[in-house]
């Protein structure tokens, strides 16, 4: 499919878009925390994929190559934009937690919201690495290649992120999502 894409086949492009669109959107959303902005990032990414697909040497490495474009675009966009979520989005997220049935679910939900808030509060460098490592399950070496940094830098960012997450969750126990975000 990638070979056909490189030959300029639009159908292959459409199929690849269908295959990767949500994965790309989720990654961009987790990095930037902004849904409309994430769609713009996905749009830019796929346009770049179409325009530069002939530069891809290894057809098997399409996903990694596309992710590299996406992550770099998201990273640049995330650096520009503020980390604050729009109020409506915060409310929507808080409302998700209204549909629970037991006390354990309430606690689990609150803990999840606290972790999510802590991840959102991470600086973009650390957040990007956390998303790629935990959500996309990429190896440290793959993340390093994607971001164009040394493996040691990725490890260091992961370590800092874990420390910050633990720190922010331990210092504010029992905090609700509205207070955290």
């Amino acid at each position, binding site marked *: 499919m990638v070979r056909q894409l490189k030959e300029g086949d639009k159908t292959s492009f459409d199929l690849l878009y269908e295959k990767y669109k949500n994965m790309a959107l989720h990654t961009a959303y987790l990095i930037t925390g902004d849904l409309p902005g994430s769609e713009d990032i996905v749009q830019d990414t796929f*346009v770049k994929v179409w325009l530069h697909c002939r530069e891809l040497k290894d057809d098997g490495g399409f996903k990694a190559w596309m992710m590299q474009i996406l992550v770099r675009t998201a990273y640049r966009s995330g650096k520009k934009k503020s980390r604050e979520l729009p109020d409506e989005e915060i409310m929507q997220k808080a409302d998700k937690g209204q549909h629970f049935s037991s006390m354990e679910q309430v606690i689990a939900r609150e803990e999840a919201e606290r972790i999510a808030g802590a991840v959102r509060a991470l600086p973009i460098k650390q957040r990007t690495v956390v998303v790629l490592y935990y959500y996309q399950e990429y190896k440290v070496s793959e993340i390093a290649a994607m971001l164009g940094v040394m493996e040691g830098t990725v490890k260091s960012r992961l370590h800092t992120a874990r420390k910050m997450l633990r720190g922010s969750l331990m210092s504010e126990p029992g905090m609700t999502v509205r207070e955290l975000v």
Partner: protein
Amino acid sequence: MREQEAWEEKIKNVLDLECDGVTASRDLKDRIDRQILESQKEAGNKKKFSMKKLVIGVAAGCLLISGGVFATGHAVSLSTHSFLPNPTGVTVIWEKRKGSWAIRRIRWSRSQTDINSRG
């Protein structure tokens, strides 16, 4: 170690949960297709523009070179076919004769060339 794994599993689950229900909007594909078309048009225009620039550049280069060549030829002809007025009427040149250098004076007159040589 187990605690660490559980903690990391939690982070992963939370991130999964965050993306729950987040899907690409229907018009995203249309926007992408539109932008691709625009980019291709832009690239085409750029190519045309660069071809124009190339043609203009080559023409300008040719003009400059031919102008330069003409000017150089003119300058050479000026230097080889003209001399400054010499009020003394004598030109002194160095000349090699029988293995040694000697001064040669050339006196110019209107009708004839009077050559006085020394050495």
